[in-house]
């Protein structure tokens, strides 16, 4: 069998139903195999769009997302999604074509060292050197992508090798002696953690995207509710705990709620689950949670004590550990009343500093209101992706995510242009669900071209552009920290998104009136096919509250 056809068989053996990509010289054999290979292929307009679509697909479904590109520029266009998938631990496999073996190292046409370029941003990579390795490499790539701490895996295949004839035998086992992720947490450590929690008077449960990745949201929620634990989540973890809820403090970190950040600041014990103490969470590290001891549960041992030294480290899968922690905790029959004072203090912050903004008195649409309107128009029942900037933070703050895999954003890398293709991928993976994208007028232009893909393929995403005419988040920083010197952040009212939508074969709309916004949004949602809505919002609104970069939770402004 031709190796390229064996590749199709290997992909199908992994359960792959759909891939996103764009052909070129070096992966022509693969595309010939795709022609009748029995896998749905979505022709994107830019490989980065394909890569983010694969991520959106993976985040929404929990399955491995797959993206394809040719050698050279096709591969370099995939670099951003690969890095994005690395930082957000997204299970993805990237299949790149490479020039013929004899050309490697000669600076041949469209040759680049894809393996070298991507080496620091992949979980692992396979540079295929013998066509017979392909089925095994694919099998191992999928295994690596989805097990342990998930991440992107690259398989780079030279053109001549995918044309070669091989004997196809399905790969049935992996041979990765150096890869043995720990999944089961140490029972002794779990018991210690339970005992510390039962004795703590000011605990906070701080969860992250690892809970979503582990499929452990239900277990996590049950654990949090075993006592009156205050719960906060990172931007990656939203949906792991059903918001709103009386134990829910809101998101923490740079644009988190004061209640969440102050609770971290005064906690005596912080239980981190599937979270990695990123600088957007800790702010100034030396002043982060100065009174707290830390339980840190993570599947990646290297995360433990990387930024914040853990007192009780537990390495393993949250799905395995959290129920055992719960059982140990319950057996201690802790005194629930011990948390009364703590809650009194937290509720005081919640009352004093709720998330708030000054709504307009006229028809002007405040960006925060736009998020609330989308929540109302969808009844909260939608998958929502976002780009990167103010609109992302407002969506995280004001859209209540009550289930995991419903909030799809680029948290680690902060990639503008992520939202639209990610929504496309999520919609492909979840055809029966409503998929919306909250886009920035700057960000959306970075992967607009995929609207053509959506139109052609009938992928009915609803894109709502929060149009403030600015690269808003950067403008905000310039306003607050650079003396209002607005340097290269104004974009005006270009382009005309409604006309653009039309040109792409999607439906374009423009909303400017707050009073009818919810109803207008409903109409957009009910419109068939892909819809791009230009929502004109207040231009110079700031995302608050905020911990200025490098400062402590106590220094929150706004």
């Amino acid at each position, binding site marked *: 069998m031709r190796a390229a056809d064996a590749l199709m068989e290997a992909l199908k053996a992994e359960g792959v139903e759909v891939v996103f990509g764009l052909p070129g010289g070096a992966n022509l054999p693969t595309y010939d195999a795709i022609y009748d290979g029995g896998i749905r292929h979505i022709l994107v307009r830019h490989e980065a769009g394909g890569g983010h679509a694969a991520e959106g697909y993976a985040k929404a479904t929990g399955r491995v997302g797959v993206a394809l590109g040719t050698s050279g520029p096709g591969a370099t266009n995939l670099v951003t999604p690969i890095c994005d998938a690395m930082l957000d631990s997204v299970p993805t496999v990237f299949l790149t074509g490479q020039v013929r073996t004899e050309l490697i190292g000669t600076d041949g046409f469209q040759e680049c060292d894809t393996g070298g370029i991507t080496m620091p941003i992949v979980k692992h990579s396979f540079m295929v050197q013998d066509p017979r390795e392909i089925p095994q490499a694919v099998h191992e790539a999928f295994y690596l992508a989805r097990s342990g701490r998930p991440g992107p895996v690259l398989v780079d295949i030279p053109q001549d090798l995918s044309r070669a004839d091989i004997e196809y035998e399905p790969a049935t086992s992996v041979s990765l002696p150096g890869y043995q992720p720990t999944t089961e947490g140490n029972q002794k450590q779990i018991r210690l953690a339970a005992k510390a929690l039962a004795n703590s008077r000011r605990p906070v449960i701080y969860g992250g995207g690892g809970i979503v990745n582990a499929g452990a949201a239900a277990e996590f929620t049950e654990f949090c509710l075993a006592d009156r634990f205050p719960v906060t989540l990172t931007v990656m973890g939203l949906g792991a705990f059903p918001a709103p809820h009386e134990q829910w403090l809101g998101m923490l970190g740079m644009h988190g709620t004061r209640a969440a950040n102050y609770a971290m600041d005064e906690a005596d014990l912080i239980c981190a689950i599937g979270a990695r103490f990123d600088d957007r969470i800790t702010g100034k590290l030396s002043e982060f949670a100065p009174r707290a001891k830390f339980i840190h549960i993570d599947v990646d041992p*290297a995360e433990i*004590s990387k930024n914040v030294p853990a007192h009780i480290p537990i390495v393993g899968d949250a799905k395995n550990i959290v129920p055992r922690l719960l059982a140990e905790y319950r057996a201690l029959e802790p005194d629930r009343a011990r948390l009364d004072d703590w809650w009194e203090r937290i509720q005081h912050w919640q009352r004093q500093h709720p998330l708030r903004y000054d709504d307009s008195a006229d028809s002007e649409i405040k960006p925060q209101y736009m998020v609330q309107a989308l929540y109302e128009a969808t009844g909260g029942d939608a998958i929502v992706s976002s780009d990167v900037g103010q609109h992302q933070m407002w969506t995280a703050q004001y859209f209540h995510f009550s289930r995991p895999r419903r909030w799809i954003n680029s948290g680690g890398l902060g990639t503008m242009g992520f939202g639209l293709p990610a929504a496309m991928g999520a919609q492909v993976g979840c055809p029966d669900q409503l998929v919306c994208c909250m886009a920035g007028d700057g960000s959306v232009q970075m992967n607009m071209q995929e609207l053509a893909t959506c139109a052609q393929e009938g992928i009915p995403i609803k894109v709502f552009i929060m149009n403030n005419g600015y690269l808003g988040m950067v403008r905000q920083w310039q306003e607050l920290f650079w003396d209002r010197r607005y340097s290269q952040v104004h974009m005006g009212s270009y382009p005309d998104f409604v006309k653009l939508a039309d040109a792409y074969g999607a439906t374009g709309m423009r909303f400017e009136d707050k009073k009818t916004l919810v109803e207008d949004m409903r109409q957009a949602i009910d419109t068939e096919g892909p819809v791009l809505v230009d929502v004109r919002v207040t231009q110079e609104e700031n995302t608050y509250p905020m911990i200025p970069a490098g400062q402590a939770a106590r220094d929150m402004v706004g």
Partner: protein
Amino acid sequence: MGEPGTKELLSLEDLEAAGGLRTGRKHVLSILVENKPGVLTRIAGLFARRGFNIDTLAVGPTDDEAVSRVTLTVDGAKHPIDQVTKQLHKLVNVLKIRDLEPEDSVARELALFKIACDSGSRGEVLQLTEIFRGKVVDAGRRSVVVEITGADDKIESFEQLVRPFGLIEMVRTGEIAISRGRGET
């Protein structure tokens, strides 16, 4: 406090954090890797990306041809060694890492010194070579090449002593190490 099997709780004050600590000394890491393309780049790239410095690096085959051994030394005063080893463990082709304790292992390095000397100073250089149990591996009218094997401090003291004669060049392999006793490194 917090005895296992009891309901006794754990005092938070008694908890101590481990990890992230600088040990303040040199560490010799003996790493077994699969002999796959790009392994060395992955290791070197990881050090570069995480801002860790490799002080010395030696790579060679083992008794198993599918496996190579990388021996590298890292300064534990500058870097948290447990972070270094945990990050290394994440490389799929890394099979085993051992942080060799000085007292439980033997470390050796080979160095070649090209030293300027004439008939007047040659005797003294040869004498030093003998004291250090080195070998002259090449001799010319105006220079000699000396081979010294030993732990890095021995090589460094030899270097100090021959410098005044005119050290033309020095080449060192970087340390390799093996554990003491019957067990595998």
